[in-house]
């Protein structure tokens, strides 16, 4: 077994075990920290797939931004008087429904991915994808890039306005 296979199976194990931790752990704080390891595992997968820029972006945006926001959300929405942090899980019925449905989805996807005859074409080997990404963002996808920038601005101003405490 080569190094690539070893790295792949380790990252896959990290991703799946920590994702199980996210959906199954009793306390929301543990879920949030499991999510950290899921994000790291996915970033490792990106590195294995020669996507260096996406891997760094994943670390900066997900781990440095989204996860911090989620942990803030977890801590700001707990009752101060409550002793333990409630996970808010639902009853046995929805647990069973969710389990059956996600097992069905997992089996369906696995069977589909194994059986479909995919069109395969290896990406050309390059030192780094950053130059190519930069060029195509500023030529072919310029409009989408600008729209995304405006969307981020609008979303963050809107979020700040919504989250502001009413002054009156």
């Amino acid at each position, binding site marked *: 077994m080569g190094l690539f296979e070893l790295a792949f199976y380790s990252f896959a194990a990290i991703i799946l075990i920590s994702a199980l931790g996210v959906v199954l752990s009793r306390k929301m704080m543990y879920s949030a920290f499991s999510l950290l390891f899921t994000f790291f595992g996915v970033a490792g997968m990106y590195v294995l797939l020669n996507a260096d820029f996406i891997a760094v972006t994943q670390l900066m945006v*997900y781990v440095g931004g989204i996860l911090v926001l989620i942990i803030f959300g977890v801590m700001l929405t707990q009752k101060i008087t409550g002793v333990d942090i409630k996970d808010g899980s639902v009853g046995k019925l929805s647990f069973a429904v969710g389990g059956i449905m996600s097992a069905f989805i997992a089996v369906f996807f696995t069977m589909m991915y194994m059986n479909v005859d995919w069109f395969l074409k290896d990406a050309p080997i390059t030192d780094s994808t950053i130059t190519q990404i930069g060029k195509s963002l500023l030529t072919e996808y310029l409009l989408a890039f600008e729209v995304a920038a405006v969307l981020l601005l609008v979303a963050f101003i809107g979020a700040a306005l919504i*989250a502001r405490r009413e002054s009156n």
Partner: protein
Amino acid sequence: MGIGLEHFLIVSGLLFALGIFGIITRKNAIMVLMGLELILNSANLNFIAFARYGGLNIEGHIAAIFVIILAAAEVAVALAIVLNIYQNYKHINVDEINKLKE
């Protein structure tokens, strides 16, 4: 047998199923958001896997970047709404929130 496209796709499919499980079995809004993040990550993993093995090349990377941008915007707005709901209801159980305005 070496690692190919299918291996990455299967990991992302399992991640998607776990995200769906998290969304269905929790009623805390922030746990639902975490399940959503798992699903977005699995979609991104698919984009990058096809970029590497399926001839999508740099377009897959661009799509993944836009997914990451939208995830950042979405989680900011969603957490702002969740904090507002918490101020009004003192809880964030998604199945008990049924009023837009008091």
